[in-house]
């Protein structure tokens, strides 16, 4: 496999509650609304003012926002096929931006273009402009960019090393001279603390990372991404491979992290998006259909398509 020939990943299909899952494992506040399945094109219970999602938003403080990245009229094509059409979005530190939409709508492609991972696919081409703190990211070295904009993937992928080495990996590669282990320890522990994992692994830093549970591995990946001290953190459906307990932990973590980094999260789980997002962008077939604050978009979407998607009419 060559890195330069990796095809774009197809986003996984939307997950439904499988028959075997017991609702007992879901805290009651998170049960999806029992709205009768609407026919396509019809407005559902919405008309009498009931909100479309009934889960509660995670508690949070209001923090000042700082503009970090700007996406300007960006279109991305793989060969002849347009995956993203002319999307413009702001990305700010202090808030969580959720990208939602059905499979194949281009949200993952857009996310990957933010740290230029789309370039790994030879047939990919991009028009438009993405800026980071005012600089066009196309003019930056990819390695520099990817340290300032780090990414956490859907499948936890800790390296086959110890926990310590996983976090220290980035620090060792960034440094001019190979730092001693003792010098790295504070930074490693700080990253683990910011990811909420330190307490659980404090005494076992030299154990292999692959022995952790799925949720712990994903938090390790988040810690690893944070160790690079990025300005923007990209999360590509980070909880889709995890159990609900781990999901909750990571969601709380993401809300807390938004104070230090700008967070962009792609998710197909609408309840999750509502819980954690400050702003939400709904994409469909590559277009940005609607963008707004989470309350506005979920409570009172202005576009019919958004309404249909959120009420479960398609996707």
């Amino acid at each position, binding site marked *: 496999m060559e890195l330069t020939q990796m095809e774009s990943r197809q986003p996984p299909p939307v997950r439904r509650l499988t028959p075997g899952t017991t609702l007992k494992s879901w805290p009651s506040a998170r049960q999806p609304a029992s709205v009768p399945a609407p026919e396509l094109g019809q407005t559902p219970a919405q008309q009498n003012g009931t909100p479309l999602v009934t889960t509660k938003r995670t508690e949070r403080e209001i923090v000042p926002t700082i503009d970090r990245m700007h996406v300007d009229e960006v279109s991305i094509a793989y060969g002849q096929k347009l995956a993203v059409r002319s999307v413009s979005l702001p990305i700010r530190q202090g808030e969580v931006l959720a990208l939602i939409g059905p499979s194949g709508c281009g949200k993952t492609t857009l996310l990957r273009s933010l740290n230029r991972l789309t370039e790994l696919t030879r047939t990919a081409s991009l028009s438009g402009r993405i800026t980071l703190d005012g600089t066009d990211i196309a003019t930056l070295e990819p390695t520099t960019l990817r340290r300032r904009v780090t990414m956490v993937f859907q499948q*936890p992928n800790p390296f086959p090393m110890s926990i310590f080495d996983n976090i220290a990996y980035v620090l060792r*590669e960034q440094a001019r001279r190979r730092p001693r282990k003792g010098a790295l320890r504070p930074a490693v522990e700080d990253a683990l603390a910011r990811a909420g994992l330190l307490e659980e692994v404090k005494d076992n830093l030299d154990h292999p990372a692959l022995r952790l549970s799925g949720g712990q591995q994903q938090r390790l990946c988040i810690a690893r991404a944070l160790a690079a001290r990025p300005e923007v953190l990209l999360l590509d459906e980070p909880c889709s*491979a995890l159990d609900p307990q781990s999901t909750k932990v990571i969601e709380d973590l993401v809300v807390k992290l938004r104070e230090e980094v700008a967070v962009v999260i792609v998710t197909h789980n609408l309840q999750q998006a509502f819980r954690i997002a400050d702003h939400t962008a709904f994409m469909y077939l590559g277009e940005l259909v609607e963008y707004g604050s989470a309350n506005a978009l979920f409570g009172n979407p202005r576009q019919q398509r958004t309404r249909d998607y959120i009420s479960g009419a398609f996707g």
Partner: protein
Amino acid sequence: MDDEFLEYEEPAANQDKRAELGLGALVCLVVFVLLAMLAFVLKEAWPAFAHNGLSMFFGSGGNADQQLQTIFTAGSENHASNLFLRAWPIVWSTMLTTGGSVVFSFVCSLFVAVFMVEFAPGWLQRVLEPVIRLLASVPSVIYGLVGVLVVVPFIGNHLITQSEKASVTPVISLSGYSLLAGVVILTVMISPIMIAIFAEGLRSVPRGWLEGSLALGVNRWRTFWKIAVMSARPALVAGTVLATARALGEAVMLSMVAGTTAYAPNPFDGLIFFFEPSRGIAATILQYRDDITSPPFERTLFAFAAVLLISAVSLSLLGWAAKQPQKRHFNVGGIV
């Protein structure tokens, strides 16, 4: 009437049972033959071992070639002294040639495999694969021929100075048939084996790790080197071990380019060390192949063969065992 047209098919169970027994018997036969080979070679070699002990290989004293001559002319093994042999020069030559070529080949093969899998432009990648396959399939006698007609004269005429030749004339003659020629050509011969196995291992690294490393801002070279090479370690071990087994058994090429005297190259001779002749175990057996009619000589040659067989077998088994964990290693914790 219809019965004539119906094919009588034996009940499936009977067919299968016979087939399984038949194939099983075949398989057992082959295993038996090969284990018998091991046993027979060791049995034939035993008298020589018994007489000389380990110092047959690791002790030195006297000229090994002369000792071999004595063994040959002795004609019978009634006298224990007929089997006397101190073959350290031969063993040392084998160790040098094998060790040297494996070390050089490992480095070259690793870089070429990394290059081939990841960093070569497409057209070069498509060229390299058949090239490596070609190098792997050239018969060793052709390597030997090219070696003796090109490499040996080059070394003899251009690399060794006259004064160097003069300085060793009483003992040996430096004519280009040398350790250097043997190691260089052997490196080229065993590299394709390593490259093929390394490349296979490198290609099967889970892409999640490579993508994850790139997404942290580590550049392609370091990503590939640190992550891919590290996780392809089983393949590295397997390739090295199998190439070593191949290098150990090489007789034809080495007998054509590395000289025909049993001499232990001396590292303390400085540069001359590389130009000294070195005839290894396999080449020795080949050289004396016609003298096998004399029983004590036969025992001695089989002793050499036993050494080769045991080393090669152990290495092959090691290589096979090293290839096994590759699948297990990656299916932990939900990766891939």
